[in-house]
């Protein structure tokens, strides 16, 4: 229950009401005062002061002065009249309630209107500011355009002037040329009779008789000297050829064609493969030094394959693989041996392992990949798994479309498959 403030004093004039409300010991701010046209409330919990005013007031212009311990209200009346009392005398609870609610609603509406107005003015201000900046920028742009336009016109004029000069110069030249042609004929006649150093005399002679501007003199001189010059031009060079080489790269492609990323990966893998040495040296201690080198073993294996000793070749490759399991060529060659030994499953395994190690696919390992596909394909066919075999042959053909034997074999397999499906 709030504590009602009943002590107040008021006086009035024709147009205003002055209300003094003492509030000792409490701090008042403008938030505690609520005022509408006919309702005034001051609420500082737990204190409460409420007044239903006798007549409506102009609440926007009315003021409240918060002093030390007292609020001084100056309420401007809407109608100039004298009030009988500050508040409406016979106000019952319902009326009071109604008035209160009304007052609150009114206040809300007012507040809304005010915010709306504020928004509108803000927008207008923004618009204005924007337009102003746009105008400024436009002016600046125009200024620059004008300067550029002036330059353009100046330059065009200069160009026209220059062109005129060119045309005039050409006309003059043509006239001179004709004049000179006449003189050249004369000069040539004289030249026949006289020596080289006397040619100056004909020129001087012409300069005396010449009525046209002195440019002609220079003209004839230069014509003359040009003739001499032509005779002095060096003979055409003796034909020769310079042979050149182009910059080589590991992969001979220009930057724009290279697949650097893949190629770098391939190179890196190769390097790593070379470096891996199997840690399992205990069993291998009794091997000779050279037998621990996978490359040497590979070569040994190749030789034995060439002589037809397939089992020995397989042994060599096995040892090499134990030493370094990352070299794809070992698996590739071992697959070939297994094919010859008719260990078809082992051949397939080895070719697959080789293909695995031969990624990423780059032009460098094309040959190896073709061989792997062909060997695996052959093994599949010999196991009568013709569709898988055909797949591998086609993959080989994709890498190397020009290989006739692969093409022939692929054809054969296709026929076989068709034959089988017809049977079944």
């Amino acid at each position, binding site marked *: 229950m709030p504590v009602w403030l009943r002590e107040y004093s008021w006086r009035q004039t024709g147009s205003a009401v002055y209300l003094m409300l003492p509030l000792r010991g409490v701090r008042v701010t403008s938030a505690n005062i609520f005022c509408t046209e006919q309702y005034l409330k001051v609420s500082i919990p737990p204190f409460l002061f409420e007044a239903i005013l006798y007549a409506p007031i102009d609440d926007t212009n009315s003021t409240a002065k918060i002093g030390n311990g007292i609020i001084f209200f100056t309420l401007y009346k809407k109608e100039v009249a004298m009030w009988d009392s500050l508040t409406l005398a016979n106000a019952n609870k319902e009326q009071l309630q109604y008035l209160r609610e009304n007052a609150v609603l009114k206040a809300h509406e007012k507040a809304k209107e005010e915010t709306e107005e504020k928004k509108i003015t803000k927008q207008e201000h923004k618009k204005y500011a924007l337009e102003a900046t746009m105008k400024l920028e436009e002016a*600046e742009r125009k*200024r*620059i355009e004008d*300067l*550029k336009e002036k*330059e*353009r016109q100046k*330059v*065009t004029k200069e*160009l*026209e002037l*220059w*062109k005129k000069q*060119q045309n005039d110069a*050409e006309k003059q030249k043509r006239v001179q040329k004709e004049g000179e042609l006449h003189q050249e004929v004369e000069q040539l006649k004289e030249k026949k009779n006289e020596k080289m150093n006397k040619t100056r005399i004909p020129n001087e002679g012409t300069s005396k008789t010449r009525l046209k501007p002195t440019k002609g003199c220079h003209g004839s001189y230069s014509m003359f000297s*040009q003739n001499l010059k032509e005779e002095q*031009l*060096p*003979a*055409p*060079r*003796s*034909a*020769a*050829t*310079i*042979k*050149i*080489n*182009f*910059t080589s790269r590991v992969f*001979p*492609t*220009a*930057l*724009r064609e290279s697949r650097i990323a893949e190629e770098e990966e391939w190179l890196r893998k190769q390097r790593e493969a070379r470096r891996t040495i199997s840690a399992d040296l205990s069993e291998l201690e009794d091997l000779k030094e050279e037998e621990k080198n996978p490359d040497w073993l590979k070569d040994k294996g190749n030789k034995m394959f060439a002589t037809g000793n397939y089992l020995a070749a397989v042994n060599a490759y096995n040892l090499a693989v134990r030493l370094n399991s990352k070299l794809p060529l070992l698996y590739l060659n071992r697959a070939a041996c297994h094919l010859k030994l008719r260990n078809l499953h082992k051949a397939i395994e080895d070719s697959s392992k080789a293909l695995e190690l031969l990624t990423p696919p780059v032009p460098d390992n094309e040959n190896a990949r073709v061989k792997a596909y062909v060997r695996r394909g052959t093994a599949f066919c010999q196991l009568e798994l013709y569709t898988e075999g055909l797949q591998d042959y086609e993959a080989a053909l994709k890498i190397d479309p020009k290989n006739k034997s692969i093409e022939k074999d692929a054809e054969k397999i296709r026929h076989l498959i068709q034959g089988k499906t017809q049977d079944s």
Partner: protein
Amino acid sequence: AAAAGLERPQLVAHVQQAVPYTLFDCKWVPRSARLLCLGSAARGTGLLQLYELRGGRLALLREIEKAKPLKCGTFGATSLQQRYLATGDFGGNLNIWNLEAPEIPVYSVKGHKEIINSIDGVGGLGIGEGAPEIVTGSRDGTVKVWDPRQKDTPVANMEPVQGESKRDCWTVAFGNAYNQEERVVCAGYDNGDIKLFDLKTMSLRWETNIKNGVCSVEFDRKDVNMNKLVATSLEGKFHVFDMRTQHPTKGFASVSEKAQKSTIWQVRHLPQNRDIFMTSGGAGSLHLWKYEYPAQRSKKDSEGAEMGVAGSVSLLQNVTLSTQPISSLDWSPDKKGLCVCGAFDQTVRVLIVTKLNKV
């Protein structure tokens, strides 16, 4: 700040003309306000158009059609009186035409097995000394030097060694023609090789590789002791080599700049100032550059051998004219700042570069 910006050279677009064919090369006719456009018509024939700059337009004076599309042309090897045009076409033929009577070429040879990508001429137009010669670089990997007085066989042939896989030659340029004997040819290839051939000693004088295909090479002046060489490449890079000092192992010093994100198709030096050059790019832009020499152009290395010092390059101005690559560029030798460029959007544009005197 805007005012300061306007003190720099401006690239003013003066005239623009749409042409009904693919434009490959455009060149000013020396001593005139006329320009030449070369290209390939839609029906697969070559087209040559001669325009004159009149008022604010280009007026078409002549149109000449030839059997094969034309790729490149030069006036570099003809005299000022004759002004014959040498062209290379898609079939590998080198022809020299008299534009007054273009039905029959003055000189013709099937120089290469494949398209002639680039052509250059030296010894003509009253510039430099020595015999007029033409060099052509082709997709067949060879670079050949021709003398118009000698029929059918080139006077020099730079070809790959037997068995070597060939690389396309994309650009050629003459240089160092300061007296009657000296001459060099610089050639750029699609794998980034740049090779310098000395024609006096008939040998390879220097080679290097700039990793990306070389689209254009040019010496700053053909007729002086070789001073600078600019080589442009794919992926927006160009290199400026200082050619005054050749180190026995390191070759020539260079500075490189990555300017545009796309290929730099052409570089052309201003005929009136050899330290200013313009590069044209695959994004339709033109950049104007100035080269500044270092305080000392050469220094000694640890073993006492002379080696060159490269300077620096600064961008003066740039402009984007088109969305398609600007494939050809030529400065007028008669009017400073006037230049023509041709782009793959079938438009030829004449530009004026202002304030070059103040640079």
